[in-house]
């Protein structure tokens, strides 16, 4: 079953077409990777699904569990089970890691907060009283954000480049987090530029110039990835694939 569907979504920002008749389906309980070159519209897609301000004036529709999300605020969407991990997480002056995770957590006990930190590889004793501000490194902040999402236990997680700024060791923790989401039957849509993350997914979607260029198995999409499908010149990927094969 599809937990999320974008139906013919078209969005202009600053007089420019950013999403161009974009349709996509996301299967419940599965991990999806969304890839594509810089500026393809990946973050925009996530922002539209989350309903962030400035991303609500589009044509088409976004359905979650079969119902339109139109007109729902960010927090209403969150309470239905959707959340977003930002490409660059916000900083919160003075707000403790504990308070930040607790705000999201379903079970607000200290044990649960510590468990979530542990799951992303941040030693709870060291981090729980730190502030979610500029004193945390970019990678630490991303992991704290992921911990808050693990504690939230959402149904659909939009992850915008979960691997960016993350070191090799911590990347394993991100993969483990994906497994935890999977175990809990949560659905993941992970935006990435990393083949390693793509390989963790069960389905892959290739976006370019605000359009879905191709979708399917990870192996199939990984082929474009390795061929460095940038820029795609709006060429039909299947034609390109054939051309590549001929040249090769």
């Amino acid at each position, binding site marked *: 079953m599809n937990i999320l569907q974008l139906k013919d979504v078209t969005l202009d920002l600053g007089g420019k077409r950013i999403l161009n008749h974009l349709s996509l389906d996301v299967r419940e309980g599965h991990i999806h990777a969304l890839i594509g070159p810089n500026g393809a519209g990946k973050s925009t897609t996530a922002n539209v699904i989350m309903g962030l301000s400035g991303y609500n004036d589009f044509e088409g529709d976004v359905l979650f569990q079969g119902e339109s999300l139109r007109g729902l605020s*960010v927090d209403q969407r969150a309470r239905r089970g959707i959340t977003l991990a930002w490409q660059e997480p*916000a900083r919160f002056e003075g707000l403790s890691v504990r308070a930040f995770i607790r705000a*999201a957590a379903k079970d607000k006990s200290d044990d649960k907060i510590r468990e979530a930190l542990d799951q992303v590889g941040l030693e709870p004793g060291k981090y729980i009283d730190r502030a979610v501000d500029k004193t945390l490194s970019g990678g630490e902040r991303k992991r704290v954000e992921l911990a808050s*999402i693990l504690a939230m236990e959402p149904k659909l997680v939009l992850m915008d480049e979960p691997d960016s700024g993350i070191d090799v060791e911590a990347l394993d923790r991100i993969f483990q987090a994906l497994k935890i989401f999977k175990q809990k039957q949560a659905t993941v849509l992970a935006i990435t530029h990393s083949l390693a993350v793509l390989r963790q997914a069960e389905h892959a979607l290739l976006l370019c110039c605000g359009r879905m260029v191709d979708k399917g198995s990870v192996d199939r999409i990984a082929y474009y990835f390795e061929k460095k499908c940038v820029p795609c010149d709006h060429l039909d990927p299947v034609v390109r694939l054939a051309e590549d094969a001929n040249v090769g």
Partner: protein
Amino acid sequence: MSDSGLLAALYESIGVQPHGLRGQVDVARIEVHHNRVLGVHLVPGLEVDATERENGIEAKILVTEGTLIEKPIQVCFGMIPPDGLQQIVLEVEIEPRARAAIVAHCVFPNARQIRHEMDAMLTIGEGAQYAYLERHIHGADGGVVVVPRSKVQVGEGARYQTDFELIRGRVGEIDIDLEVTGQAHSVSEVTARISGAGDDRVSIRETARLVGQYARGVLTSNIALRDSARAVVYNTLVASAAYARGHVDCKEIVQDNAVAKAVPIVEVNHPKAHVTHEAAIGSVNSKQLETLMSRGLNEDQAVDLIIQGLLGGPSSIAAPESSLREIQV
């Protein structure tokens, strides 16, 4: 009211059990109600000389050379009646290489028409460390005018940290004036955290002069305003020696009809000195707001949490068990 009754009332407003605190022999205390010194408990290396005046007290607090006072000295200045004037004249001297922290509670829970003035002169000796938290607890109606004036000399290699907190109860009117001069290799960190509502008025005027090589100074003001509260912050940082480094940081979150103004002045008069400033004034940052909303908080809850963080601040000084070792400037 008897002295013990006043003391109990002051501690009740802070939320502390007086006998709990009084039972700790290694925690120094100074308790003042209006112009009465209700109690003084000293620890080795700490000298307090207090004189009662008509409308307040005059006191000298001295920490002798090389003394390390482990637990923060607990000071309480307050007034239980709704009206009155309290004038505190304070001289603080931290002698070279001594280390001490003070947590001062200024308590006016029933204020209707109270004026609290503080005139402080501080000298932090060479290589000494001094941290001061002033936490105000006011009633729900404002009715307090708070006028703290401080002049601080931070000696060579010394560390000075001060943190002014007014987030419980209404501000009323506050007019902070602080001037700090930092010698070579000194560190001065001045923070104010204030929450204003109703018709509260906040004025902050802080100046740091970094006169010695490698002196460092940070002036931070975090303010949240609601209703028709107003705040104005004049922060001045002057660096006039080689490798002196300074930063002015002002964050003001404004809701409803509140008005905030910040005037940072940064001045450098040595080619090898460097100062920066940062000011963010306005509504709550939308990315912060949407992050918390995407975790299920509604807008009001998210705003409250962001403000709580902003005003919650770094006060490691406040924890009763905190020792100087944990106080990082």
